[in-house]
């Protein structure tokens, strides 16, 4: 069976061979990015692991 060609993103993901933990972090970040239009997301890393995600959103009101 011919394998469908991978996108650049799929290739990168494949090559990284993400751990379960890494997948969780990326899923959470993707979730946040879907919800915010303008803002800042900060990943706090300790001992090579993301221990906290902080974010600030900005809304224009006028």
């Amino acid at each position, binding site marked *: 069976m011919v394998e469908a060609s991978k996108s650049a993103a799929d290739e990168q993901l494949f090559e990284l061979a993400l751990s379960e*933990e890494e997948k*969780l*972090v990326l899923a*959470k970040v993707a*979730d*946040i990015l879907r*919800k915010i239009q303008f*803002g*800042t997301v*900060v990943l706090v890393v300790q001992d090579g*692991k*993301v*221990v*906290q*995600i*902080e*974010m*600030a*959103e*900005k*809304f*224009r*009101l*006028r």
Partner: protein
Amino acid sequence: MADAIHTLAERPSAPAEPKLALRDLVVMRRTASGETITATDRLTFDVAQGEFVCLLGPSGCGKTSLLNVLAGLVMPSSGEALLDGRPITGPGPDRAVLFQEPALFPWLSVLGNVELGLELTGVPASARRDIAQRWLANVLLERWADAQPHELSAGMRQRAALARALAADPDVLLGDEPFGALDAQARELLQREVQRFWVGSDDRKTFLFATHNVREATLLADRVLVMSAAPGRLLEEFRIHAPRPRDLDDVLIARVVSEIHTLLMQEVDASVAREMAR
């Protein structure tokens, strides 16, 4: 780790009745020269129970007028100010205000001032002393209970005012530049204490502070509402999801401070341009 991430990145859940609500609120006020001006220009926003919101804006933008309406000290000219869905018609024990000047009664001791606050909200005499002493201990003034206000530093007086305000167990704490008259150290201490009390109230208490200090607003608030110069209207809202106690050097906080500064500079420029065009 997964849990920590989950909690922090959560958006606030769908609101029940907001604790405080403003709908097209217009407040007029008298200036020192006697003319009547529009302080706020159809303000509309909600504050959910348990939130800590800071109103940020230049002097004269209507923050004080707005807080006076919420405190029940001033009636709106038009629009509505609601507490738990009901129009605010006057002051009440459910709201306490922290002003820039602590306004402690000079003829009462520090303890006496806190007890008076409790008496005014109907706490029976038997309970007042205990509650007052407990709150003085909370703000680290227990050894100054019998002192007169003039013996205290400005920061200590404001801590006493904070104890007086919170001892009465209000649902809402309103602050009008409460730390504006304090030196940097006292200001920092009070900011930490206020955060501690708010966190300790476990989503039961709602805090709404007005300030023109960008760093303070970002340090304290879940949401920062940036107001224009008078007549004040809302320009932008910043929602900050970062744990407390917060550090001004924290990357996220520093970025938000920077963004707000940029916004305020733009607003000043626009305001000047409008003036010149007249």
